[in-house]
């Protein structure tokens, strides 16, 4: 009995000695708060906060001792938790969602030429500025769909990118990946958008797309505060987006669409009918 206690005690003591010595020799100091924050972050390494991946962001928050940027995918829930870890005032970012400002799939928008090669929008854009006659339209080759870390983008059977308001966390990777800058960020609760990205004259737009904006100014006349025509292309003024839906029926080319009513044709996202408030999204 004594022997067992003594022997184990001796081994333990010896081990403790070597470890104590080693601990001093190989000391490396790591801030535990950094790991705690890292756990909270979604881990998509999307870079929307402007830092190299989530570990970069966590390091910044701990070292910088102030929250210099928000984490869009994390949203306000994560930001509040980080704030109380760091004992700082939480900064809330207005939740944003990405929207593909185009409805010109293969049926509606005409081709400039038959493209052969990589199914990648950036590669196709390099071949004579893309296979579509419209200079700003969605090429529909799925680059944004592959880049999205949250699976929020789908390609309709007729090659049009559509982004689900429910799944999109606003990380912005798709915006950076699109060679034609068709995808833009919009406030979460703004559901009505002018789905067009072409600044050509109306007559030209009519020639190559059935659902393009021909800058006929009807929407602006209908709801002056909610629409703005700039360089021959209408856009929704998101400050007062509530009364934007009124002009949806009036648009002659059906270019304006309210996602609360329906997504572009061919899209499988049906959650539009469910009225989405900020709280449901956070769950």
């Amino acid at each position: 009995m004594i022997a067992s206690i003594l022997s184990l005690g001796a081994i333990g003591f010896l081990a403790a000695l070597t470890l104590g010595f080693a601990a001093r020799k190989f000391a490396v100091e790591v801030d535990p708060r950094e790991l705690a924050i890292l756990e909270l972050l979604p881990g998509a390494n999307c870079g929307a906060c402007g830092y190299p991946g989530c570990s970069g962001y966590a390091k910044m928050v701990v070292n910088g001792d102030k929250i210099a940027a928000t984490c869009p995918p994390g949203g306000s829930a994560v930001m509040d938790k980080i704030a109380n870890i760091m004992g700082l005032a939480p900064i809330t970012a207005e939740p944003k969602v990405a929207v593909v400002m185009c409805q010109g799939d293969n049926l509606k928008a005409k081709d400039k030429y038959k493209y052969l090669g990589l199914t990648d929008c950036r590669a196709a854009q390099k071949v004579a500025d893309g296979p579509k006659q419209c200079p700003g339209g969605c090429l529909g080759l799925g680059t944004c769909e592959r880049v999205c870390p949250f699976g929020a983008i789908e390609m309709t059977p007729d090659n049009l990118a559509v982004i689900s308001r429910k799944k999109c966390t606003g990380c912005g990777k798709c915006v950076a990946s699109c060679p034609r800058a068709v995808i833009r960020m919009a406030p979460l609760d703004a559901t009505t958008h002018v789905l067009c990205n072409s600044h050509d004259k109306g007559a030209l737009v009519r020639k190559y797309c059935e659902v393009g904006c021909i800058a006929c100014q009807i929407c602006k006349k209908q709801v002056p505060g909610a629409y703005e025509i700039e360089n021959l292309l209408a856009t929704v003024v998101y400050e007062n987006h509530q009364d934007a839906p009124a002009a949806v029926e009036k648009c002659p080319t059906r270019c304006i669409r309210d996602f609360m009513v329906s997504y572009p044709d061919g899209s499988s996202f049906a959650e539009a009918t469910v009225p989405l408030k900020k709280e449901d999204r956070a769950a």
Partner: protein
Amino acid sequence: MAMTKLKTFPGGLHPADNKQWTASRSIEFVPLPDELIIPLSQHIGAPAEVCVEVGALVKKGEIIGKAKGFVSVPVHASTSGEVVAVEPRLHPSGRPLLSVVIKPDGEDDWIDPLPQGDPDKLSADELKDRLRDAGIVGMGGATFPAHVKLSPPEEKPIDTLIINGVECEPYLTADHRLMLEEPERILQGVAILRKILTVDNIYIGIEVNKPDAIALMTEKCAGTDVKVVPLEVKYPQGAEKQLILAITGREVPSGGLPMEVGVVVQNVGTTAAVADAVINGYPLIERVCTVTGSGISEQKNLRIRVGTPLQHLVDFCGGLNGDPAKLIMGGPMMGMTQLSLDVPATRGTSGLLIFGEDDIPLVEQGPCIRCARCVKTCPAHLLPTTIAAYARLEMIDEAEEYCAMDCIECGCCSYSCPSFIPLVQSLRHAKAAILEKRRKI
């Protein structure tokens, strides 16, 4: 010629050379079109700056666009006439770019006086200035300003000049006919280049599928120290790095230029243009171009004016033969497809290839079965399939580690891929992403 083992490089492939359509056809003059579209960017480097207004009357050879910076050359009027427009017009790159549109007056009279000169009296620097003012660029397809290539820094001595008469691109026979019909012009150019570079060993590389050209050039070079080197018929034998390795055995370091191994390579067409520029004072407004392919009625070698719309060339060759599927400017391996025939020919247009529907392989892309044909044929000894996989998955660092930047975009991998994977396009995509990443850091 004893069947000694012909000089060549490891890798590469043997596509059907399809030169029989035009190899025996001599070069024909093309009458002036009714409108010349002269783009201001026809060379690597900054585009020229336009210096004529609409309505101005210009003479043949008059500078209509000044060079901007050292790596740039002026652009000249291809004939005398009136400038009817200075506006963006469809350019071979597929984008509308600023171009000067001239309506020929039919006189076709030169500027007066022409900057003629005697090469023996002019110094090397004066010769280089003449070449720059004449807008001489590499006519093998790269269009790199010749005067820049001919002025290497002191610490990089040049001891070898190689004249590239290989023309390994299938279908094209422009250089071949030039060597057969105007060898003297080429040799005058060689003499000028020799003086500029002060080199003594000079080679002319020609593939053995042009025996008549080899015989003629050897006969013309007899008595001089210019050596004609017959090379094995293999694509891309004419690529700069591969040609240098085949003839001198030196390997241009990765990411480096030929001058780093003391060599300068000039295309046969460029060499002839050098002679014209110095002796006759002609700027580069004319070049030889092969119009061929099954989609054209008569395949011909033409002497065309820079700025001639392709439609005019097609009409001169008896029009199209059936519905064209692809309009390719250059050769089938590295040429660029064109949107329409309104595009003008430029200084780098070595060929116009019209393919019909059955000439182009319309097969759906399959998965990579790792058959290693692309690895075996890659002249840069890369792993095209691995780099393409990394490019597809946005793994740019790995693509860089696998030396994607060393790809010379010769097209061998896509040519030999049984699954029709667009490997060259993927590698080009990877290179662009790497350059963008480097720019960001």
